[in-house]
C-alpha cells in the first residue's frame, strides 16, 4: 500500500518540476534572445542626447505612476501594487521558498515570520479579486480582455490560495495540498513564456527601449 498523495507530491517535485523548468527557463531565454537579436530599427536622425542613461533611468521611474493616473484608475494601480508586493513578499521571504533558491543557486537571505507571509498572501488575493471585479464591470476593460488575461489571473491566484491552505492545513490532507500547491506553481511556470506573464522579465527591456528612444530624441519618457 502506498500513500497516493505522496506519490503525487514526488511526481510534482521530480518529473513535474523538470517539465515546468524546461518550458519556463527555456521559453523565457528564447523570447529574450529573440528580442535582443531582432534588435531595433536604426534611428538615422542625429542624437539630441544620450539615450542610454535615460533608458536606464526609465526602468525605475516608470514604477511611479504619472500625475493624475492613480485618481483616474485607483483600483488598477493600488490593486496592482498590493498584488505584486504581496506576491513578492509571500514568495521570496517564506523560508521553504528560500530553501529552493539555496538549493538551486546557493543563495541565502533571511526569512520573515508567518504572520507577515499570511497577511501578504491574503492581501494579494483580495487585490486580485478587486482587479477581476473592475475588469468585469468596466465595459472598456471587459471588451479588451482576452483569454490570456483570465488564464493568468487564475494561475496567479492558485498558488496563493493553495499555499495558504497547505501551510494552515485548512482542508484536505496536508501532503495532498502541498502537492497541489507545487503543481499550481508548475502550471504558472509552464504558462509563463506564452502569456503576458513575460512582462515580469520583459518590462526591463520595454522600459529601457522607451526611455532610450525618447532620450535620444531629447524628449521626456
Amino acid at each position, binding site marked *: 500500500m502506498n500513500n497516493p498523495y505522496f506519490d503525487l507530491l514526488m511526481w510534482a517535485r521530480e518529473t513535474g518540476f523538470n517539465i515546468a523548468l524546461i518550458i*519556463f527557463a527555456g521559453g523565457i531565454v*528564447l523570447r529574450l534572445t529573440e*528580442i535582443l537579436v531582432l534588435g531595433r530599427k536604426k534611428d538615422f536622425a542625429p542624437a539630441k542626447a544620450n539615450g542610454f542613461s535615460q533608458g536606464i533611468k526609465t526602468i525605475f521611474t516608470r514604477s511611479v505612476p504619472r500625475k493624475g493616473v492613480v485618481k483616474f484608475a485607483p483600483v488598477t494601480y493600488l490593486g496592482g501594487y498590493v498584488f505584486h508586493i504581496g506576491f513578492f513578499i509571500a514568495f521570496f521571504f517564506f523560508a*521553504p521558498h528560500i530553501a529552493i533558491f539555496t538549493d538551486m543557486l546557493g543563495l541565502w537571505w533571511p526569512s520573515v515570520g*508567518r504572520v507577515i507571509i499570511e497577511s501578504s498572501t491574503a492581501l494579494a488575493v483580495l487585490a486580485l479579486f478587486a482587479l477581476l471585479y473592475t475588469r468585469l464591470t468596466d465595459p472598456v476593460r471587459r471588451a479588451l480582455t482576452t483569454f490570456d488575461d483570465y488564464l493568468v489571473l487564475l494561475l496567479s491566484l492558485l498558488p496563493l490560495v493553495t499555499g495558504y491552505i497547505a501551510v494552515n*492545513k485548512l482542508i484536505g490532507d496536508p501532503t495532498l495540498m502541498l502537492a497541489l500547491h507545487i503543481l499550481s506553481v508548475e502550471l504558472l511556470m509552464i504558462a509563463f513564456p506564452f502569456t503576458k506573464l513575460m512582462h515580469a522579465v520583459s518590462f526591463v527591456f520595454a522600459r529601457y527601449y522607451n526611455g532610450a528612444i525618447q532620450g535620444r530624441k531629447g524628449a521626456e519618457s
Partner: protein
Amino acid sequence: MAKKPMLSDLMKEHGISRRGFMKYCAGLASVMALSPSMAPQIAHALENAPRPSVIWLSFQECTGCTESITRSHAPTLEDLIFNAVSLDYHHTLQAASGHAAEAAREAAMKANYGKYVLVVDGSIPLDEPGYSCIAGISNLEMLKQTAAGAAAIVSVGTCAAFGGIPHADPNPTGAVGVSHIIKDKPIINVPGCPPIPVVMTGVLAHLLTFGIPDLDELGRPKAFFGESIHDRCYRRPFYDKGLFAEGFDDEGARKGWCLYKLGCKGPTTKSVCATTKWNNGTSFPIEAGHPCLGCTEPDFWDNGGFYKPLSVPAGDYRKIGLAAVGAGVAIGAVSALVSRASKKKAAKAHEAVDAHDLEKPS
C-alpha cells in the same frame, strides 16, 4: 493447555496492589491517548478479559521492532502487556527453536482458531519465496496459513505495514506489506522505523480492552497517527517566526531552531513522536537536532532524500535547466536571425508604387 491466569490474578501474585493496578491503567489510558477518566473502564476490561493468544511472525525485518517493544526495564507497561497476553510464538523471545517452535505455533493456532491475534513485523518478498524462509516455509505461505485463523492482524513497523526498507528503490526482493497480500482480515498498521514502544503496546492494549481502534485511510490507528509531527513539534514557534537552522552546526542549530531547511519531513508525517517521544519520554529526533525522516509514511526512503526540504525539487533539475537555457538561447537566436533575414528579403523585394500603378487593372 492449563487455564491462563487473568491479568489481575497475575498482579496479585506479583504483590501489586489495587493502587498499582490503577496506576497501570492510568498509564495505559495515557498511552492509548484516551481521556484519563477512562482508566476505570480500562481496569474493568482488563480484569474481565481472558488472555488472548498472540502469534508473532517475523519476516524480512531487522528485529528493530522487537527491540523497540522490549526496550523496557521490568516491570513497566510493556512487560505487563506481555503478561496480559499469551505470547505463543516469537522468534527472538521464545525459548523453543526448530521443530519444537513450529509445533508450538501450530498448536496455538489450532487451539485458538479464529480468536488469536497475529502480529507481523518485516516485509514479505513476492519475487522469490526462497529469499526469506522460516523452517523451510516461505514467508508468503506462512503468512497466508497463519492469517487464515486470526481474529485480527497487527502489522508492526513500516516494513510489515508498507514494505519499508526492503521495498525501497529498486526493491530487489519484490517486498510488500501485509495488507498487500491479506485482504479478508482486519489489519491494523502500526508503522514507524521502529514504532514507539508505547504506541505498539497501546495498540495491543486497545485490542485487548476495546477491540480494533479507529483507523485512518492507510489503516493506522487515528489515536497515534492522526496528527502530524509538525502540528505538535515544540520547535513550531521557530517555524512560525521564520527562524531556521541552515546547517547542523550553525547558530540556529545550537539555539534549537526549526529544522525544515535541513529536510525535516514533519509537515507530511503523521506520528506522535513529538508528544509521546522516545525512551519513556526522553526525547525524539527533532529534539536531538536531527530532522524527521518521515518513517511512518510509506516509501519514506524514496521521498526525495532525508536532507532535502519538502519544498525543494527532488529531481536532477540543474542539468535539465542548463540544457533548457542553452537550447532557448540557440533557438531564440536562430529564430530571430531567420526573422531578420526574411525582413531583409522583404525590404529588397520592396517595389516602389505610385498612384498610376494602383489604377492598373490587376
